[in-house]
């Protein structure tokens, strides 16, 4: 099936590299193949990722493993209630000579070289911090010390646990819309993986586990270029375009598309959302998946594989249904795919 043109040899090489990357991360993080695949897609789609899950399922480990395998500079902050935007930008202290010093904070410290900025427990930070992050994510720039810093390779990975709600700040819709994906992480179901995670001492020392991953499997500096090549190299047929538009329409107006969910007023279910940016992200990520699967054209399966993670958090439900979001949105997405014809 690999009918790439000769000029696309670079893409073929990179696909092999992506495979190595997945294998490297998968060696350290067990039973999360789907999350690793989605993270790989996000890397090559140049999108930011929000990981969501229970405490201790390996969100941080997964992101550290990805950062390690990707190479490049990596910074990490922990969200807290008293964190202010300036804490990200600069750091003040009294030096040995007794003079106050101002030094670049976590974001600026590695400046242009920063490839992964990892925001732990993002929902513990205040909205002011979210606002700073918004710009960082959307424009990959930051103004500080009277100049503008650019982060061409930057990708923001964030995680939040969904157990606690005290002292947390819900991410504003605008911030959530800027994340390419929201990946829900669960403990692996596979008994073998569970046994290994619990009994194999290799998985107990996270630092050693991460250190064992071969570093810099991918050339992080070349990622933006290869990402653009993928976007140009993967074709979208008119049929797939019609399919994506059909999915979009059905998601926003499920009642009109003939979707019925038990116990839900379909006309009043979806309030809005599913922004054009979201659908553009969807196609972007679908192209990456098609490339990872060894095709230079998209198929509906590419869309379906990434749809829940990309579109799920962009749909805004009526407040009455918002509390049951975790069960309604997957049902809605499944119904959309069972209804919209392809081709």
């Amino acid at each position, binding site marked *: 099936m690999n009918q790439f043109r000769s000029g696309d040899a670079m893409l073929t090489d990179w696909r092999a590299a992506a495979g190595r990357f997945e294998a490297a991360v998968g060696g350290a993080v067990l039973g999360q193949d789907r999350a690793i695949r989605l993270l790989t897609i996000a890397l090559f789609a140049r999108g930011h990722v929000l990981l969501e899950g229970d405490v201790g399922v390996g969100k941080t480990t997964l992101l550290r493993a990805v950062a390690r395998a990707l190479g490049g500079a990596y910074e990490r902050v922990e969200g807290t209630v008293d964190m202010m935007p300036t804490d990200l930008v600069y750091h003040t202290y009294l030096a040995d000579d007794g003079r106050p010093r101002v030094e670049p904070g976590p974001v600026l410290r590695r400046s242009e070289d920063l490839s992964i900025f990892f925001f732990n427990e993002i929902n513990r930070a205040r909205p002011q911090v979210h606002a700073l992050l918004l710009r960082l994510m959307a424009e990959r720039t930051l103004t500080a010390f009277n100049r503008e810093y650019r982060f061409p390779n930057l990708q923001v990975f964030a995680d939040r646990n969904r157990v606690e709600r005290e002292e947390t700040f819900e991410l504003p819709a605008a911030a959530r819309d800027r994340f390419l994906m929201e990946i829900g992480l669960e403990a692996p179901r596979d008994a073998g993986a569970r046994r290994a995670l619990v009994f194999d001492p290799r998985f107990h020392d996270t630092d050693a586990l991460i250190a064992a991953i071969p570093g810099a499997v991918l050339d992080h500096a070349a990622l933006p270029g290869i990402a653009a090549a993928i976007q140009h190299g993967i074709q979208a047929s008119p049929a*797939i375009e019609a399919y994506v538009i059909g999915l979009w329409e059905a998601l926003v107006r499920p009642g009109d598309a003939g979707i019925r969910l038990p116990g839900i007023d379909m006309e009043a279910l979806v309030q809005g959302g599913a922004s054009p940016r979201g659908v553009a992200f969807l196609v972007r990520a679908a192209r990456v998946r098609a490339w990872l699967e060894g095709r230079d054209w*998209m198929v509906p399966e590419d869309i*379906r594989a990434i749809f829940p993670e990309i579109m799920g958090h962009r749909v805004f439900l009526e407040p009455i249904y918002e509390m049951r979001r975790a069960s309604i949105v997957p049902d809605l997405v499944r119904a959309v795919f*069972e*209804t919209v014809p392809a*081709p």
Partner: protein
Amino acid sequence: MTILPDGPVLRTGRFVLLAACLALPAPAEAQVRGVEVRTPRPFGYFLGDLVQAQVDLVVEPGFRVQAASLPQPGALTYWLDLRTVSVSQSDMGDARRVRLALTYQNFYAALDARTLEIPGFTVTFVSESEHGATTAKAEVPPWSFNVSPLREVQPPARDDPRDYMRPDGQVGPGDPRAFLMGAAGSAALALLGFAGLARDRTWWPFRARRGRPFAIAARRLRALAREPEAATGQRDALLALHHAIDAAAGRRLLADDLPGFLDAHPAYRGEAAGLARFFEASRRTFFGPGAGHDAFSLGDLASLGQRLARAERAA
């Protein structure tokens, strides 16, 4: 008070008892012009017989019967019941005639022929004017009739006590056709109702048959294969088969779902290779670089549709 035979009534076999109120001085009495009691006959009644009586009261115009003064149906004496009373009024010249139709029932078990008297009663009439109400009373006199015993008082002795009884009456053969027709009609209605219920509940033979999407698709594919020069024939054929597969699966089936579909519908497992090839061809045609060297010809598609339709029938 006289009892006179009445000419026309005699012709019809009725006996008329005419009670004329002759006590003229009382002005209230003058307002009642006549009282007549007519019966079919005053003799020949047995235990349980109904005795009809018709009482005609002629009063001044403007008077009407006070309903409460009429005799009430019920037991009058231990041997006599009044069964029904009905009243009709009509104008007769310058007078008003009130006709009471009374039905009595006699329960007197007579041992010999004897005369019994039905008691009389009083009927009150009212005339209401601006100056007040005037009442008038009409006395209906008692009258008599003869009752007779049903059987001998001392019948001759018989050996078998059953001989005292009359034999049972013979019942003639009835005509069962009306009942048969009714029964048949009811049975037909019941069957019809049951059929409706069975249809509603999708019992046999209304059990919802699964549609046969592949049969429809196979027909369409055959039709398309007959005119291979049509430009969109290939795409239409692929679409027709897609629709059939979607209908069979109950949802939109993508190429990657094929193993799951075959697990859920083992009947089509024999066509796994053909279906996989179809999905690959469809993918290339609709989403990919176009049909490659392994393109499905319309004939191949039609024969795949036939085989799937056959598998569908067997399922």
